[in-house]
């Protein structure tokens, strides 16, 4: 295999690495930099990565099976790249004023690079490497609001909890290695035996993932970290970080542990039911909109797990589809939150009262995003959620479907609270009318368009489905 093939196979990784090197060089050698130009360059390279994902159909492995790539993985990477691009646009204004915007992108691209490697891994070693490459810079980003105590506090919480989860994950991996004598996905799958120790190792792996995807009972870090971090990073954590973990989670479950299907389905059903219920019940009481969205994202993780548990090609397609729609809706919601936080510093739901009077377009965007999160037609969220539930139904998880449907009622209640604040409640001192900056507007328009359109275009789902696999 020649060099060109390698590059074509690892194009995401190579380009993002190139950007990292370029940014480093810029930081070292030039004193004065044009902010807008660099931000433009970065966004452009994200777009380039995204576009490159749809050219050709690479398929193969590098480093002796350590690194795999195929259409599905490319699609998954494209989804997270796309979400990152939206977040980068959304945070444009905040970064412009931030003195260390270059470092921000350095870290962001390292995270992306780590996630690419993690998603593409064919070996637990590579998986762990990618995971850590993504987690440690992410913690640095959480602390990126230098003059806010909460930001640093969140970073502390995050590094502790993720180190803890990594340790448990590593313990599970070492047990796996002890039993099968290998860390390669293929060989572990081949040497799988249903011994109690193996199940124990599987459970330990689950704990590691549960932290990343913020499943109950490993969700406690989520709300604090989401509240403390800068809004751009909060949206990154809730969409990209979660999405990447779900993707590799599915790959590992379906490819490495198909034999243990009976064990992990039951665990997943249980976790899913608990996650959405607890996330919902906590979301009701929140007054800070970032904390609120944190709990709502825990609930959404519960819905995603339905799809993961169903383990068919259709359900995998639904999960990817849902995450794409979730990216649109959640980033849409966070964009509005970040615009308002940026202009006025207000983050409480009560501050949103009367927003429709002063900023009608922003309120409508938030309305659509929230409806999409709640799964109300005609927004795309309805389709995403229903497909997850349908895949659960076709796998026969009727009890879980009943719990999920009942949870949808609770979640509608708290989503409507935000709508009520914006459209119904009166406020003497509403947030004043302001004009948003263009990149954030672009991000918002893309999100709104996605929310309105993606559900009705059936070839998006068909495309995802054609690349999905199940057990």
């Amino acid at each position, binding site marked *: 295999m020649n060099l060109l093939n390698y590059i074509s196979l690892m194009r995401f990784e190579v380009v993002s690495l190139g950007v990292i090197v370029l940014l480093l060089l810029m930081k070292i050698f030039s004193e004065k930099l044009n902010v807008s130009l660099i931000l433009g360059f970065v966004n452009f390279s994200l777009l380039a990565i995204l576009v490159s994902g749809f050219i050709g159909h690479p398929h193969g492995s590098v480093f002796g099976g350590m690194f795999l790539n195929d259409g599905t993985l490319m699609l998954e990477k494209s989804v997270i790249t796309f979400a990152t691009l939206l977040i980068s646009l959304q945070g444009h204004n905040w970064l412009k004023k931030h003195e260390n915007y270059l470092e921000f992108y350095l870290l962001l691209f390292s995270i992306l690079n780590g996630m690419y490697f993690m998603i593409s891994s064919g070996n637990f070693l590579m998986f762990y490497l990618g995971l850590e490459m993504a987690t440690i810079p992410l913690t640095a980003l959480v602390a990126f609001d230098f003059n806010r105590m909460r930001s640093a506090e969140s970073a502390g919480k995050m590094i502790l909890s993720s180190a803890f989860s990594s340790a448990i994950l590593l313990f599970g991996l070492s047990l796996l290695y002890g039993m099968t004598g290998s860390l390669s996905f293929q060989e572990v799958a081949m040497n799988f035996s249903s011994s109690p120790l193996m199940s124990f190792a599987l459970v330990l792996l689950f704990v590691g993932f549960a932290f990343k995807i913020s499943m109950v009972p490993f969700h406690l870090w989520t709300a604090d970290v989401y509240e403390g971090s800068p809004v751009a990073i909060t949206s990154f954590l809730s969409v990209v970080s979660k999405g990447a973990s779900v993707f590799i989670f599915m790959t590992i479950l379906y490819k490495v542990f198909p034999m243990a299907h009976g064990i992990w389905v039951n665990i997943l059903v249980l976790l899913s039911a608990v996650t959405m219920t607890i996330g919902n019940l906590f979301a009701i009481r929140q007054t800070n909109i970032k904390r609120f969205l944190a709990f709502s994202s825990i609930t959404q993780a519960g819905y995603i797990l339905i799809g993961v548990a169903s383990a068919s090609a259709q359900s995998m397609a639904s999960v990817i589809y849902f995450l794409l729609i979730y990216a649109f809706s959640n980033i849409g919601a966070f964009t509005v939150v970040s615009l308002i936080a940026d202009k006025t510093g207000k983050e409480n739901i009560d501050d949103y009262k009367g927003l429709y009077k002063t900023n009608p377009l922003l309120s409508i965007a938030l309305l659509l995003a929230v409806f999409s999160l709640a799964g109300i037609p005609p927004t795309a969220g309805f389709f995403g959620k229903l*497909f997850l539930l349908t895949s659960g139904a*076709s796998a*026969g998880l009727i009890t879980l*479907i009943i719990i999920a449907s009942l949870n949808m*009622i609770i979640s*509608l209640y708290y989503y409507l609270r935000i*709508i*009520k604040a914006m459209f119904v409640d009166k406020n003497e001192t509403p947030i004043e009318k302001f004009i948003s900056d263009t990149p954030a507007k672009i991000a918002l328009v893309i999100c709104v368009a996605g929310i309105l359109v993606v559900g009705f275009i059936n070839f998006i789902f068909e495309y995802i489905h054609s690349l999905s696999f199940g057990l």
Partner: protein
Amino acid sequence: MGILFVKGQTARVIALAGSFLQLGLALFLLFVYMGEREAENTALLLFEESHVWFLQWNINYHIGIDGISLSMILLTSIVLVAGVLVSWNIEYQPKEFFFLLVMLAMGAFGFFISVDLFTQFFFFELAVVPKYLLIAIWGSGKKEYSAMKLVLMLMGGSALVLIGILSLYYFSVQARTPTFSLFEIAKLGLSPEKQMFIFPFLFVGFGVLSAMFPFHTWAPDGHSSAPTAASMFLAGISMKLGGYGCLRVATVLLPEAAREYSTYIIILACIGILYGAFVTLKQRDIKLMNAYSSVSHCGFVLLGIGMLTKTAMVGAVLQMVSHGVMTALFFAVIGMIYERSHTRMGDEMGGLLKVMPFLGSVFIIAGLTSLGLPGFSGFVAEMTVFVGSWQVPDFFHRSATIIATASIVVTAVYILRAVGITLWGPIKKKEFENLSDATWNEKIASGILVLSIVIMGTMPLWLSDLILKTTETLFGTVIK
């Protein structure tokens, strides 16, 4: 016929033009449909259209029209025109108001014409959430509480429906033919146990929407807090979504379970009818009065379905149409009177017939329809239900029929009393003497509704014929 509605969000004119267009098309559809039936076209669905939506799930955008859905479409377009006309002078954010109203209508139209469960559910939910905004923004009284209660209860209903639909899908997957299509699921031949499992979900889920006892509590609050057009829609159309779903989805797909559960349906329906009627007696607020009487009247729909005889089912559909128009008229008149007198308490009014003869007469017509006076639609519908119910010759069904019939007496009491205290007698407040009568838009709106009531009341045969043929083909196996 797809959704012919161009979204009328720019202004009331577009909304009005659109709704008139819709009404025209519905009438046109009616004539074409009847023409086809004359020409011995016996296919169950006419104007059928099917597009693949999501191949992987076997979800199709599959629509078609039969006699029952046609009558529902007629009802919806009539109420829509009237609703737009009534809210002609709305001042606060009219653009959004009409947009949401049209969205509701779109959901209702789509629900009535689709025969794919997924598509149907999509439209069903589409017709739920706009109500929150309509009531919470433009409503009156404790509007936020009512709006939240209403939407959460309806959402609860639709969650139950969703569980039912997904269980059906699961059973179709088990039979190796994953499908959402109503007809293919009907062909599956589900075993009685499975039917017994799913039926409560579907029936109660839809039942919440048609204010089945004990899930009726959203109705009084929601109706009384909603703005006039929204109340007309809620009682006139949304409650019919539930009845239609109970009939067209739950009973058709799960015939054996329907037979098993029919006793409970009848008991609940009777409780609803009586309870609604007696609670209405105690109301001073005329809007609340009509809201409770809607609960009572919708009980007849469920009663008709529960009886499972051909005549009773036709009666149930007739009652849906009749009550839809009648209650829309009632809410419209109440809204118009309230706009002028600024009170809804019956005993604070009095002698209004002298100052507003037009509105007063319309009020009387609505009242007489509600109590089932021959010549108006209410009589035809209720009579058909009773005749159909009486056909089941055992003690239980007959006594249920007698109980339900008895409620008409109660209805007569509260209607006549309400008419008496509001319209006759001395004028109680000085300022009422200068109140104006109906304006042009109000006259057209009530004119259309009264006209449909009278047409249905004097010439019911074409409509019942329309429904009867469909009922025969659909429920050939169910009915006793």
